[in-house]
């Protein structure tokens, strides 16, 4: 086991040292909440954050980015643009670590997406073990994301005065040895780590009434469930749920041109299946006209379609969509309702 101990006082100097060579992105306060953002002052890093408004996907798939620049005159020319730079992404909770692994699959399968993958290649990820539930909406324990054994270069666990640092990759090892002042863990540290890790589990509650592995099958049988109409009545189609989702990666692509109409940029930005025009074709037909159909699509993607495509569930239980929904739509309540109908239908 490659385990090191980093005193909490050593975090600020470590971040300061990293800032010389990397963009360091980590959780920091924004009003009463927290956001991932570039760290300008190591003292502003808040590894004690509960959750963030947006997930760290915004570092790997920015809300908006350039894909290419082009000229529009005769002899037109297109130049790809990959916006990436050396980055350390600090303090990623385990639900978000799972989500990033899903994004890795999505952007590398069949046609690799150089824009995402180059940023991913240049990003060193430092995970952070959750010891307490971040708030009342998270359901990571149900989704199997309360811990992570991959998806990070370094992983921190709070031992009180110090962090235990699990070194998972060569990039992580180099980062720690070059910039940090950690010592190798002693037997007592390992014992302490094991205590902390086993003590955390009772603090978290399951919030799904069933095993999440049943989700794909439950949803396959729930296409005509009355839940969708009920959600369609309440949903305002604002797209907040997909914006804050760590595994939503759908995007729109559009061109912007200069005033002289001589050159421009091709850009992409986050898009949402909850918006009216998302599935509309040129002739005017929309294949998910009703909000109920769009909510159903979101639930199906999270609990079934992504599983069918990548072999893992599309929901990591972070609870952000529940937290952000102005209509109080809860994916936990929705999944539970579908399960309830299924077991009720079996006469239980």
């Amino acid at each position: 086991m490659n385990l090191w101990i980093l005193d909490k006082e050593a975090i600020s100097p470590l971040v300061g040292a990293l800032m010389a060579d990397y963009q360091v992105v980590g959780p920091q306060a924004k009003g009463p909440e927290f956001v991932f953002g570039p760290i300008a002052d190591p003292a502003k890093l808040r590894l004690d954050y509960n959750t963030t408004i947006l997930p760290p996907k915004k570092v790997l798939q920015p809300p908006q980015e350039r894909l290419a620049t082009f000229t529009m005159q005769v002899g037109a020319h297109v130049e790809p643009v990959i916006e990436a730079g050396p980055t350390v992404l600090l303090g990623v909770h385990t639900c978000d670590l799972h989500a990033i692994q899903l994004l890795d699959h999505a952007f590398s399968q069949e046609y690799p997406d150089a824009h995402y993958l180059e940023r991913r290649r240049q990003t060193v990820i430092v995970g952070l073990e959750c010891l307490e539930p971040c708030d009342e909406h998270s359901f990571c324990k149900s989704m199997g994301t309360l811990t992570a054994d991959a998806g990070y270069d370094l992983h921190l666990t709070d031992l009180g005065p110090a962090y235990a640092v699990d070194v998972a990759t060569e990039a992580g090892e180099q980062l720690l040895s070059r910039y940090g002042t950690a010592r190798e863990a002693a037997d007592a540290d390992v014992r302490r780590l094991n205590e902390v890790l086993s003590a955390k589990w009772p603090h978290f509650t399951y919030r799904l009434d069933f095993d999440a592995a049943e989700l794909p099958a439950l949803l396959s049988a729930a296409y005509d469930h009355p839940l969708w109409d009920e959600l369609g009545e309440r949903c305002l189609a604002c797209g907040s749920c997909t914006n804050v989702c760590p595994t939503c990666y759908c995007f729109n692509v559009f061109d912007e041109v200069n005033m002289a109409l001589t050159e421009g940029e091709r850009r992409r930005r986050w898009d949402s299946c909850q918006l009216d025009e998302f599935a509309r074709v040129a002739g005017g037909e929309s294949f998910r006209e009703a909000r109920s159909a769009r909510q159903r699509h979101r639930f199906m993607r999270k609990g079934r379609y992504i599983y069918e495509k990548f072999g893992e569930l599309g929901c990591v239980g972070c609870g952000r969509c529940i937290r952000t929904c102005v209509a109080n739509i809860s994916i936990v309540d929705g999944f539970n309702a579908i399960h309830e109908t299924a077991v009720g239908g079996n006469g239980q």
Partner: protein
Amino acid sequence: MTTSTSTRLSTSIYTPEIARLVNVEQMTELEKLFTIELPDGRNLGHEPGQFVMLSVLGVGEAPISITSSPSRSNGAFKLCVRRVGDVTNALHTMQPGDQVGIRGPFGHGFPIEKMRGKDMLFAPGGLGLVPLRSLINQVLDERGFFGRVIILYGAKRPAELLFRDELDEWVTRDDVECHFTVDCDADMWDGDQAMTCNEGVITTLFPLITVDPRNTVAITCGPPIMYRFVLMELLGKGIPETQIYLSLERRMKCGVGKCGHCQINGLYCCQDGPVFTYAQIKGVEEAL
């Protein structure tokens, strides 16, 4: 602090290649036929039924099915495009010599190897002839490898029938069985005398033909409303679901299974399609 820098790499799946319009032909009031050449006269290398992402730089990008068959490439390919959105309206203002961006070809086309030896029943409606034409001409260029070739084509009115020269040619061939129909104004028909035009929706053509269902492959494409009725006719003739092919249309922003726009329940129209068998999409609620 190191800020994010823009690294310029040469390979991105989203970078279109600059291609040149070599010919533009007005087909109907709304449709034009564009002949496009890639740099150095390189072949597109597509299968019938595939599509490209076409860019008008500064306006945007849209998925367009390829209407020319690989057998007639000659270093250029053809797109028949209706002006209906931003990109296609901009394309319609362009002239030979103008430049467009091309990515692709993408998607699963028609599996022509599986179709050899079979009777071919094409049933396009309106603009649905465009993707099917890539297969029709491929089949006609390899005519000896196929059984009967039947084309049932419907449009709203005579002036909206596409590829009139080819329709005339197909009608005069004795190895192609053609039946055309228009929803209305059949008396406005001014085509070849050899070719008569029925009045009524496309399903009115099916009673005119008999098929050997087990040896028949049916291919259809058209406006969403059409599929249900055409499928009933095809199934009614006993053609197996695995031998009925459809080419579907969806909004697409990437063409490569990422942007999410073209998703049909769990399927991606861009990667799993745009050509599907009816058996593939029969239980897929959002497909039709």
